[in-house]
């Protein structure tokens, strides 16, 4: 019992229940409870959740990555351009995008660990550079800011099965989300590398003194995060058979929020992958629940803000003790 109470994701779990109950009673009649309704918020949660899982691990390792949003745009555009302009196979294009993502992640990690600059600043720089380069290159090549026609790409069908098919009304991305959450949770809690992540974030100097290769751990997490962003880009590119340069804008903040809702500390060293996944679920439910409830979109942000602070408060209250190290 005490073990359960001590888990960082407990708050998020209660938050999920609270938010669900709220919308079920308030907007249940309008389809929130229907299978189709559940499918819409689970789809949002699954994509955000994939990212939040990686982001929460990176945050536990003590770093931020603000460039994931523009990474989604960059990867999606890479896939679309390669397929649409050069007629590449979709799979080859996805592979190139993944390599690009890993390279940017590596670069982020190297700069952060070498220069000891705050990752907030470095990855903000990456955000600008990536997003600018995506716009620049796309407009240079196509004269537009959106590229479509992926449906005609080579091997589209197999990619669609894997990334954009549906099981009943539910998106296949939900399976990915569950799978990756389980895997990441196992890595974090049950492997040596997971222990190193906690050490690297909780007390980097101490961990280094004990022989943990802190820099390598952080770089690996930057690369994982970038790869997850690329995965989402792939989902969206395949599902929407194209990309635009604004896609993913703001996703970095949503992912960080989901991680925090899930009990991950902004300061690093403490957190939970499962919690981040649940945080994403809260996010998805709020986002769609507002639509189901028919809240005037003028007031949407007010609602979101109140729900957000409310969820974090419930979270903290349930966890019983306030986080010690803050910010």
């Amino acid at each position, binding site marked *: 019992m005490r073990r359960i109470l001590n888990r960082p994701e407990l708050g998020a779990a209660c938050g999920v229940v609270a938010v669900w109950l709220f919308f079920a009673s308030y907007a249940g*009649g*309008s*389809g929130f409870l*229907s299978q*189709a*309704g559940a*499918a*819409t918020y689970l*789809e*949002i949660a699954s994509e955000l959740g994939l990212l939040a899982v990686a982001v929460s691990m990176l945050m536990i390792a003590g770093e931020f990555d603000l460039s994931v949003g523009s990474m989604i745009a960059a990867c999606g555009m890479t896939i679309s351009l390669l397929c649409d302009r050069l007629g590449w196979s979709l799979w080859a294009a996805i592979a190139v995008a993944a390599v690009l993502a890993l390279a940017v992640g590596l670069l982020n990690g190297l700069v952060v660990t070498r220069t000891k600059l705050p990752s907030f600043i470095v990855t903000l720089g990456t955000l600008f550079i990536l997003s600018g380069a995506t*716009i620049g290159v796309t407009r240079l090549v196509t*004269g*537009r*800011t*959106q590229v*479509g*026609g*992926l449906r005609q790409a080579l091997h589209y069908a197999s990619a669609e099965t894997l990334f954009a098919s549906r099981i009943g009304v539910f998106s296949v991305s939900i399976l990915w989300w569950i799978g990756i959450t389980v895997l990441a949770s196992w890595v974090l809690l049950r492997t040596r590398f997971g222990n190193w992540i906690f050490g690297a974030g909780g007390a980097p100097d101490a961990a280094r003194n004990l022989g943990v290769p802190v820099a390598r751990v952080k770089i690996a997490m930057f690369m994982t995060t970038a790869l997850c962003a690329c995965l989402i880009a792939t989902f*969206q590119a395949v*599902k*929407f*058979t*194209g990309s*635009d*340069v*604004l*896609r993913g*804008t*703001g996703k970095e903040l949503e992912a960080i929020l989901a991680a925090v809702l899930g009990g991950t500390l902004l300061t690093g060293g403490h957190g939970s992958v499962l919690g981040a996944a649940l945080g994403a679920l809260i996010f998805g439910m709020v*986002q*769609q629940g507002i*639509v*189901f409830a*028919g809240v*005037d*979109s*003028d007031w*949407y*942000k007010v609602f979101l803000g109140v729900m957000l602070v409310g969820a974090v408060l419930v979270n903290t209250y349930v966890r019983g003790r306030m986080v010690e190290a803050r910010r």
Partner: protein
Amino acid sequence: SKSEPSAQAPQSAQAPSAAASGAAPRKNLTIAVVTHGQASDTFWSVVKNGVNNAAQDSGVTVTYNAPQTFDMVAMSRLIDAEVAKKPDGLVVSIPDAEALSRSIRAAVDAGIPVISINSGADVYKGLGVLLHVGQTEYEAGVGGGEKMAATGVKNVLCVNHEVGNASLDLRCKGFLDAVAKAGGTGRVLSVNAADPTDSQQKVSAALTGGVDGILTLGPLSSNAALAALRQGGSLGKVKLGTFDLTPDVLSGIQGGELEFAIDQQQYLQGYLPIVLLSQYKQFGVLPAGGVLPTGPGFVTRETASRVIELSKQGIR
């Protein structure tokens, strides 16, 4: 009352003229509107006023939704959610047919009558959308370019306050194409819509390059451009045109500080589809035209005074 219309929706979609409810008294209809324009955008706030007025006039319930940023993925999810609510009609804008086709098709397949507005004139038919209300951004831009070229300018600036928003890109492209056709040159200047000081000073800086004509894509940047011209003392020397109306823009036109404003009459883009859908739903009637163009209209010094009061009410 929810289940009733949804049960017969498929039939009415298959054979509108045979709608069972044809002669029935006016029912409690629900129409969903999903656009790509944020609630904070001046242009779209007029559309929304049109939607609301139409809802009141025809006694239907409407919900208006738009993503918080120009985000096609979020927009498709909003459509999904609305479709899950099984409305009696759906109004969408289609700035990116590729991204939205899946969600729009799903709505059509679910038997919901769909009308598109603003952007999507070229693709709406293929998606099973009944009707399009509005005009393409590119043509509006071309119109602006022709008007600007007619004043004799040679070096123009298109001030874009939201890079990556496909409809703004099209406006600039049309504008620059038209100016180029008339023998002029020009470039795009991107500014931050949220910071008028930034916009003003950027236009000021760009003016040093010998620009003699400016088109702004919305009132946010037109105010800043006006301030920049005032600061540089080049009011009247540099021609200024803008998209969309506000009281400030109109008084600027009256005072001769602005050359013209391109008016898409976006109020109608909000008003018409609601009325059309409610009529269609009740009586199965629909215009046969396909595209109902709402613009571009130009407001110039001669016509400004008439429009100014309407603009204050958020109708133009």
